[in-house]
């Protein structure tokens, strides 16, 4: 006799074993939505596609709902976003795990989401497809059988597919199945179930792993990693030679990560490719404080191989910037990008948009070598998303989870740049505890930020 199918709690506990400290976990409707309630864990960012980063679980009379429309509370340090930001978090490589409850999964990882016999011909994908295509790992959390006893796992989907080849692992109420290049492999069975019993109730070829195990339900202890670093040098010491680095630098006053720039200088790492609005004009323009620190300190230290910028020259021809001098000596490369195009390219890089048609620069020198296209009678050129290895940004305050708020126009490029790098380092005036920055005021959610340092009040020691 087969055992009893697992209940939803046990399935949730097994699903938790796929998570790791600091993971960003997107939750689809159905069973996945209730994971935060069933798991006594912090340490991950549960996403609701309604616009929540950091779901804590169900609660009454809150200002938030999840994908099921249920009222939920946020963790301390949770943040609200709009739906376009959520779409970018899902698509832009920021989501580690998506947990979905498909109606059907095929042997090749195709899945059908909410299509049922009752909605035949129509479908209600919501953002399940966005989650599946965006997440590094897609977990299908679902009963092994439909109410009528038929298998939810099939050789091929019998209904139109919502996601092609997207599912990586299937966790059901009787088994865990890996979806690989060669098809499905049974790797775990629920207590009381044999491999033969699971194979018999699965309507798809199912290989049994030579390392077959019994499912366990130990929930891992997870913590969001400590992001606070002692100094700029500590936070940047793994920047490799030739790294692409986003650095804000609208012009001068505020917004620029002076302390992290000093850290890069002191590390001396060479061949840097900076993406920045200016290539360092604060010093020659004499604005901002400390105006002596801008990109020039890196250029003069022979660390800059290239700049991608919209304002690479000094406003005064008689006072060229350090970068201009280096460029004129043939020591650096330069890619000039209009400011709005630079912002859009960064935004697309961070939001998983490979390329976009922009009207800016069509028919000019800036369009040379780029695809031109007329859409609805208007001329556009194709620009691609930009990504970086590191990003150094300046915030006003951060909490220890990495949530950031800015001050005035020092916001400028910082929030968009924070979304586009493999490792984002922020310097702030003050670090506070989670919950001290409100969910409505957070501009950069903590999932984008990897490292935090406190900026010194006085830079005289670094000049």
């Amino acid at each position, binding site marked *: 006799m087969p055992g009893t199918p697992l209940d939803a709690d046990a399935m949730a506990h097994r699903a938790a074993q796929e998570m790791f400290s600091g993971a960003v976990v997107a939750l689809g409707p159905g069973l996945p939505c209730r994971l935060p309630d069933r798991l006594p864990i912090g340490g991950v960012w549960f996403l609701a596609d309604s616009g929540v980063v950091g779901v804590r679980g169900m609660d009454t009379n809150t200002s*938030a709902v999840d994908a099921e429309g249920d009222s939920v509370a946020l963790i301390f340090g949770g943040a609200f976003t709009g739906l376009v930001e959520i779409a970018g978090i899902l*698509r832009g490589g920021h989501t580690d795990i998506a947990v979905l409850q498909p109606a059907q999964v095929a042997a090749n990882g195709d899945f059908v989401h909410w299509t049922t016999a*009752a909605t035949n011909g129509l479908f209600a*994908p919501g953002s399940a*497809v966005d989650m599946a295509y965006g997440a590094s790992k897609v977990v299908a959390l679902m009963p092994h059988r439909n109410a009528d006893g038929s298998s939810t796992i099939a050789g091929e989907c019998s209904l139109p597919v*919502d996601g092609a*080849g997207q599912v990586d692992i299937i966790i059901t109420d009787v088994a865990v199945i890996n979806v690989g290049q060669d098809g499905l492999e049974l790797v775990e069975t629920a207590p009381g179930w044999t491999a033969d019993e699971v194979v018999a109730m699965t309507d798809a070829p199912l290989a049994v792993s030579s390392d077959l195990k019994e499912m366990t339900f130990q929930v891992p202890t997870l913590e969001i990693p400590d992001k606070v670093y002692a100094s700029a040098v500590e936070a940047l010491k793994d920047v490799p030679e030739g790294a692409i680095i986003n650095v804000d630098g609208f012009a001068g006053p505020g917004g620029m990560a002076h302390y992290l720039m000093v850290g890069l200088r002191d590390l001396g790492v060479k061949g840097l490719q900076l993406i920045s609005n200016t290539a360092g004009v604060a010093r020659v323009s004499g604005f901002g404080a400390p105006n002596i620190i801008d990109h020039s300190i890196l250029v003069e230290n022979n660390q800059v191989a290239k700049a991608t910028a919209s304002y690479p020259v000094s406003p005064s021809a008689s006072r060229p910037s350090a970068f201009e001098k280096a460029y004129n000596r043939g020591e650096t490369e330069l890619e000039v990008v209009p400011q709005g195009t630079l912002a859009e390219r960064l935004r697309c890089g961070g939001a998983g948009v490979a390329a976009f048609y922009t009207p800016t620069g069509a028919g000019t020198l800036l369009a040379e070598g780029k695809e031109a*296209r007329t859409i609805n009678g208007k001329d556009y050129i194709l620009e691609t998303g930009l990504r970086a290895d590191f990003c150094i940004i300046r915030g006003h305050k951060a909490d220890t989870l990495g949530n950031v708020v800015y001050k005035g126009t020092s916001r400028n490029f910082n929030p968009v740049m924070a979304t586009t790098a493999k490792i984002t380092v922020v310097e702030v005036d003050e670090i506070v505890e989670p919950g001290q920055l409100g969910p409505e005021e957070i501009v950069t959610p903590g999932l984008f930020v990897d490292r935090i340092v406190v900026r010194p009040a006085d830079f005289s020691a670094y000049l």
Partner: protein
Amino acid sequence: MTSVPEKPNAKGKLYASVQSALEGISDGASVLVAGYAGRGVPETLLRGLAEIGVGDLTLVCQGAWAQEPGKFGISDLVATGQVKKMVSPLPFHPEYGGPVKDLWESGELELEVVLQGVLAERLRAGGAGIGGVFLPTGARTRFAEGKELRPFDGKEHVLEFALKADIALLRAKTADTLGNMVYDGTGRNWNPIMAMAAALTVAEVDDVFEPGGIDPEMVITQAIFIDRLVLAA
């Protein structure tokens, strides 16, 4: 927040009636309607649309949730027969069904199902002057059928074009008389992005303050995107 005036001020973009705030909407209009699972839904404006009786509307929205007594949502507007077409990632709840499902099945309502993140990106493109975007989402499925495909970094991408509409109906928590707005929780949802993507934007809010009543660091939708305000009923 900075200090806020105690009483809302009835000047600027604040319209005295829902009727006047919706003036100019005609038959056949394309309408963006914000809201997600009952939060951030412009109920007063949807009721107003039903009362005005304009028809042949195309709605772009999250979808229709269950009808609730005393509330007025997408389902209720669709039930009036004023809607010709709906563009949505979740047109109706598979279990609940309701007027959207009924009218779709009887052929009186056209449905275009889109992916939530793709819709968000198309609206953003519309609002930000981008002509089209290449997205990985939905490649090799029916969502990519008939669309231009192109590989980037070895991965297939789908070309999606910008989406704009005639009017956006929005719901915020508070506004100032200039039209700067803040939201409440997940009531934010489609509102900021739809505010950018329509020729005419009308928002309903709980309170309207004098300029300065909303901290500039807290503003989510800037005044330049908002044309008309009404107080929520």
